[in-house]
């Protein structure tokens, strides 16, 4: 400001000459600066959108499969003897019955050639441990169905379910010529009338050649670094593989690092162990009727090598057979919404966490809306402005910025240790979250009350209303939209909290859906955290599914805040 002369407005006139070149330059510079700012704004906005889109797409892509589940549909007859030989058919007897033999026999009927205990176990392990839960409930509801064949959905295990959800695991191509097996069980040799395996054999050799190449490079690198032994080792392996690859017609042994190759003929399946151009030896995974010449046969490949998947060739053979015979059904995963947590991914549901969240939020809402709004009204309208209220105000603003874990510690010390409230209960969770949200609500409510024009209150006072009447009849109704918005945003904040709940025991495995605010329960974000920490890949899907639900929850809450503000907001 030093360049402005002190002699008054007249002296400023030359500087206001907007037609001078200097002025034009200044104007251009200002426009440039504004364009730059706008461009930066657009860049920032598009980056944000990009990040958000990336997050959403990733979560939805991973989480959507969770909403479908695969089950076997089989005709199951539960005989009275399986429940209670003496003829009891009450709920306790049905629930306590061991239905393993029944499901085992039903599955054996659906898959041919399952002999012996270990094969039976492989087969029945494809089912979830909770597969018969629905069947049991149906029998409890209608005991007269005992002894009659029932078309039943039996839930598959998480591994089987994941297998059906993954794409391109199994390929199948018609075989050339006529295939003749020399047996129907155990290890058999399949002979072809022409070299139908030549292409597959070449592919195996090519894979060997590629591995040899990689090993050579490693050998060279090790040699350069002076690791003689390591280099020698790699070179020997590379030579062995290269020799195999070079011997064009020699037989190849397939191990579990290569895709599994199988021969499908006459309804059966043979897993190839040694492969030649027109001959293969392997084990029978699914039986076929007789050892004759089959003109119609196929080469099946499980593309992912056995060492890289959890599910074995035998299990895939069973599953593919069940799928081919139309016994596998994909359906909406209702269990995800109706059951509590479980250690089995296919049985785990979100219900417990949803109900726990609802109870916790209810407690929070009932506590912090009345307390927060009354505190705001008192501070804004009634409290004298002095040192003490200033101190309170500063503290409320500070509390809004305190890390949430501190509130958890407070909850542990006061509610659990002093008041002896139960651990893991939504009651305590709600209390702790109410403490967390209170400052937000007080600040938002005060802002809302402050934004009501003083003329409204003064008019009320002017016609003889008391201070209390003026506030409660006139100021508060006008401030409600702002208060509601603040409350909903505060609640949305509380909905996403896990840290304070860790300390009061809500980060826990809880199977039963809570029935009251003193029952042990957990909440949505905690459930997400717990699932994300488990080793089974199916739980990673569950995690993403739960995140989708959580986002929907938050979206609805925030949309409600916007709608309320739009609808009830008044401008003065």
């Amino acid at each position: 400001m030093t360049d402005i002369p002190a002699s008054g407005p007249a002296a400023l006139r030359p500087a206001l000459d907007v037609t001078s070149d200097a002025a034009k330059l200044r104007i251009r510079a200002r426009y440039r600066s504004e364009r730059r700012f706008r461009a930066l704004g657009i860049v920032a906005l598009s980056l944000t959108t990009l990040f958000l889109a990336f997050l959403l797409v990733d979560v939805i892509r991973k989480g959507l499969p969770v909403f479908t589940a695969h089950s076997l549909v089989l005709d199951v007859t539960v005989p009275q003897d399986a429940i209670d030989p003496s003829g009891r058919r009450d709920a306790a007897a049905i629930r306590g019955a061991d239905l393993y033999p029944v499901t085992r026999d039903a599955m054996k009927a659906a898959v041919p050639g399952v002999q012996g205990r270990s094969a039976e176990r492989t087969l029945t392990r494809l089912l979830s441990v909770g597969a018969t839960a629905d069947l049991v409930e149906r029998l409890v509801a209608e005991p007269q169905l005992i002894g009659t064949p029932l078309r039943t959905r039996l839930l598959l295990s998480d591994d089987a379910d994941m297998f059906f959800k993954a794409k391109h695991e199994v390929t199948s191509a018609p075989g050339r010529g006529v295939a003749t097996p020399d047996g129907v069980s155990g290890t058999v040799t399949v002979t072809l009338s022409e070299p139908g395996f030549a292409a597959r054999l070449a592919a195996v050799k090519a894979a060997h050649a590629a591995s040899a190449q990689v090993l050579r490079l490693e050998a060279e690198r090790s040699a350069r670094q002076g690791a003689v032994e390591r280099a020698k080792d790699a070179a020997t392996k590379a030579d062995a593989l290269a020799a195999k690859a070079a011997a064009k017609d020699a037989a190849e042994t397939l191990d579990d690092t290569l895709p599994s190759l199988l021969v499908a003929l006459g309804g059966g399946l043979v897993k190839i162990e040694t492969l030649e151009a027109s001959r293969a030896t392997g084990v029978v995974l699914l039986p076929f009727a007789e050892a004759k010449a089959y003109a119609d046969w196929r080469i099946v490949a499980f593309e992912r090598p056995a060492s890289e998947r959890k599910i074995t060739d035998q299990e895939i053979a069973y599953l593919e057979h069940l799928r081919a015979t139309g016994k596998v059904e994909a359906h909406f995963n209702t269990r995800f919404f109706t059951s509590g947590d479980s250690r089995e991914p296919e049985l785990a549901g979100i219900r417990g966490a949803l109900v726990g969240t609802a109870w916790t939020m209810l407690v929070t809402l009932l506590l912090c809306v009345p307390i927060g709004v009354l505190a705001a009204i008192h501070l804004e309208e009634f409290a004298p402005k002095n040192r003490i209220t200033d101190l309170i105000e500063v503290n409320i603003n500070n509390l809004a910025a305190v890390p949430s874990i501190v509130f958890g510690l407070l909850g542990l010390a006061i509610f659990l240790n002093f008041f002896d409230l139960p651990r893991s209960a939504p009651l305590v969770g709600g209390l702790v979250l109410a403490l967390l949200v209170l400052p937000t609500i007080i600040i938002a409510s005060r802002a809302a009350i402050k934004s009501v024009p003083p003329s409204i209150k003064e008019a009320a006072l002017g016609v003889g209303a008391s201070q209390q009447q003026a506030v409660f009849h006139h100021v508060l109704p006008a401030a409600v939209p702002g208060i509601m918005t603040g409350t909903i945003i505060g609640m949305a904040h509380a909905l996403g909290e896990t840290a304070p709940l860790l300390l009061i025991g809500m980060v826990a495995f809880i199977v039963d859906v809570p029935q009251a605010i003193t029952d042990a329960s957990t909440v949505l974000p905690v459930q997400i955290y717990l699932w994300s920490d488990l080793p089974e890949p199916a739980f990673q899907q569950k995690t993403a599914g739960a995140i989708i639900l959580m986002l929907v929850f938050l979206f609805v809450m925030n949309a409600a805040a916007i709608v309320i503000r739009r609808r009830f907001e008044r401008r003065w």
Partner: protein
Amino acid sequence: MKRSTLIASAAVLLLTGAAQARDQIRIVGSSTVYPFTTAVAEQFGRSGGGKTPVVESTGTGGGFKLFCAGVGVAHPDLTNASRAIRKSEFDECAKNGVTEIVEIKVGIDGLTISQSKNGPAMKLSMEQVFLALAEEVPGADGKLVANPHKNWSDIDKALPNVKIEVLGPPPTSGTRDSFHELFMEPGAKQVKALADLQKSDAKAFERLWKSIRKDGAYVEAGENDNVIVQKLDANRNSVGIFGYSFLEENAAKIRGVAIDGVEPDFDAIASGKYKGARPLFIYAKKQHVGVVPGIDKFVAEFVSARAMSRDGYLARKGLVALPKAEADKVAAEATGLKILTAADVK
């Protein structure tokens, strides 16, 4: 007026909600044992033994703190631990009246060093692990210097010439304690240049193997082992430290690094051949047996053959089963609720 009734009812709730008798078992403790205890808890609830127990994941240390706080329904009945109870914790328990503790060794957890299947295959010795990760290592003249190793090949020419990058648990994790005890301590003992120090100054030696370098070669990847698996998958040159169950579940993407020539697999861990393994425990409060229903049945379910044996459902969840003879002994002691004495605790 409605508002004041609400506040009043909330206040009443606060005062009357105090804990009453409990019919549900409560378990706290290690997040490493959590996946196994929850499986047993669910089975226990499903087979009609009683209400499904509540299992909290609080960490081993936090679990003992809660477990040892006292006797009575306000305190947990069992705690999971990824290490044996310490003397200090045992004393704390005794001070608060928790005098009858049953220790149950439920299985073994292999701690693995793993890498992406696409990375250069590595074999490490404990000594190499120590030399790669300790804050200070003996220099050329035998004096301790800040860890100079940038690449694996700086330690041993036979190792791949890639940057040392190890993703592992943060100090708050029980897995981290185990890593120091199972890998760094034996590793330090293998270093010849440190033999004198070990004799002359045991404290300094211990400080050495309890340290981890802070120059970026060791990356604290958080408590969530799935995050480490994902990062390994994305970066083929780094290695990660986590439990065997995660290696088993993610065999499509990652492989274990052989330690002292032994690959981390089920048999090697169960037989004790693989050295990077630790026992897992649960501790039960005998004083609660009969007060909270089902504790004895829950323990019996945990040590039963269908849960804890090689073919049991816990093995399928990634727990490495104890050898048969030891498992039988554990089962007998657990079902008999044998009390832990001060002499048993180190």
